[in-house]
């Protein structure tokens, strides 16, 4: 047998998908920071988390990641894409790049992705659920209803979040995400 006919194959990189996901993670991370200052529910969720709480959401095994945490003053900060050297209380990972692309291109909702066992959560589950609630709300703000409805189990009713407030907050969050 001529073994050279069957060469080793080193894993390549899917650059376009990787960049797309990195951009999405950046926006979501910044939006979390912005929303925590604007939306009361999100603010409350973060207040209930322990001081200095930091978490990462990313693609296994090689990233990209986003890191969000509370600083000493209790303010929520987007802390960049590099988890190296950071003390993380909670690590949420999507099992691979293709699945992450399904999730971030809204072909598979986060709820369904969880049910499909596509996530790996390392850390305290109670905190992870709080983060999932925040992510759901951030999604409500960032995306049009038609897309978000597919992604969350229950879209907020009028009584919980009036359209006027939703749109004002949405604009504020978008502005803060890309400016401050």
């Amino acid at each position, binding site marked *: *047998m001529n*073994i050279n006919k*069957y*060469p*080793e*194959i*080193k*894993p*390549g*990189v*899917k650059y376009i998908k*990787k960049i797309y996901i990195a951009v999405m993670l950046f926006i979501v991370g910044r939006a979390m920071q912005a929303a925590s200052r604007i939306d009361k529910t999100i603010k409350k969720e973060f207040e209930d988390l322990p001081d200095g709480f930091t978490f990462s959401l990313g*693609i*296994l*095994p*090689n990233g990209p990641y986003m890191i969000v945490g509370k600083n000493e003053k209790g303010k929520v900060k987007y802390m960049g894409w590099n988890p190296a050297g950071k003390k993380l209380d909670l690590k949420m990972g999507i*099992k*691979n*790049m*293709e*699945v992450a692309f*399904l999730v971030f291109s809204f072909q*598979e909702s986060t709820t369904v992705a969880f049910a*499909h066992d596509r996530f790996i959560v390392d850390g305290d589950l109670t905190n992870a659920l709080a983060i999932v609630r925040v992510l759901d709300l951030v999604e409500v703000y960032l995306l049009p209803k038609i897309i978000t409805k597919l992604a969350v189990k229950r879209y907020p009713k009028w009584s919980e979040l009036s359209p006027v407030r939703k749109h004002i907050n949405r604009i504020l969050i978008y502005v803060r995400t890309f400016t401050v």
Partner: protein
Amino acid sequence: MQTPEYFEFLNQAKIISGKKALEHIPIELDGFNSRKPLVVTSKAVSGAKLDRVLAKAFYDSNTIIGGIFDEVPEHSSFSLAKELSILFKGRGCDSIIAFGGGSVADVAKGVNIMVSEKNEDLLSFIGEGKVKTRLKPFVYIPVSYSDGTEMTNVACIDHRIIKSDFLYPDIIAMDPRATKGCCRECVVSTAMTALTHAIEASSVAHYNPVSDTYAHSAIQFIYENLAKGVKSLGNARAGLALANAAVMAGITFANAPAGLIHTIADALSSITGHNRGTMMGVLLPFGLEYKISKKLEIRGELLLALAGLDEYVKTPEKEMAVRSLGLIKNLIKSLKGALPEKLSDMKIPEYHLNEAAKIAFNASGKKYKEQVCLDVLQHAYEGKSFI
């Protein structure tokens, strides 16, 4: 529902099935601390460029493919297993992926025994329970063709059988891209193997509640998807459902003794060289008819799996077996000629029947009488009904 006196059941594999399942293989292998698998496959797979799909699925991971060997012939051999074990060791691989049906999985299992047991003499493992250590992680990726043994604890190399619980795959990854139908004959043969195995494994004599759960899923998937899968080979959903059925039926088959129809079909196909799955498909209705005519009980739950709850609860218990048989016959009819109706259509000389009955009798450990086997074979040959 009676409680069985005693039963055992084992399904060693983790089953992952569905969209992007191939992409999940690296992280599953990582769970075994494995980073460098050897991929064993056949021209049928690489011809459909599926080997490229697999290689791409490993992008953005830390898993290096140690090599993709795509020249496994239809019949596996010891010499090929030996050559592959040299490739495995030369590349420093630590796991094996079998991508394809039949001989591919057999050879991969053989290689795995050699490299894990560190013993070049594969012949010394022939028989049952000769493998003593846990083997390297073994991934099986089904395609639309399966002979019903890939997911079991058996490897058949050069017509010799190696059997050990260590041979079960650790991971079975079903991806709709891989399980799309390749040809009508393959799809029908795979499904008929699975259907026969599932029905025979959930028969009255060895009632096993855990095995039943697998068998019933398999039967239901085949009944609902086979016609669709044969009609349009590109139907990804049907292909995936049929692959699921094949895997589940294979696992129950590994946990139950071989049934009458399996044994006869196996004997006849070993003589004539015809595909075993097709043979099972032809024999299945006649075998069931025989059992009904002899008042050998056929489980009512078979109808539940085939027809669903609503019809099942309406059918009187006495009619369930006949009704099930009718549904299976309809299913075969709906395949519109993809399966021969009787053995004589397959151009099998009639004198082979006696020989097959004899072999079946011996292979079953004298459980199925020669006359019974011959009876079923003759009816199937002429297409004559028992009832």
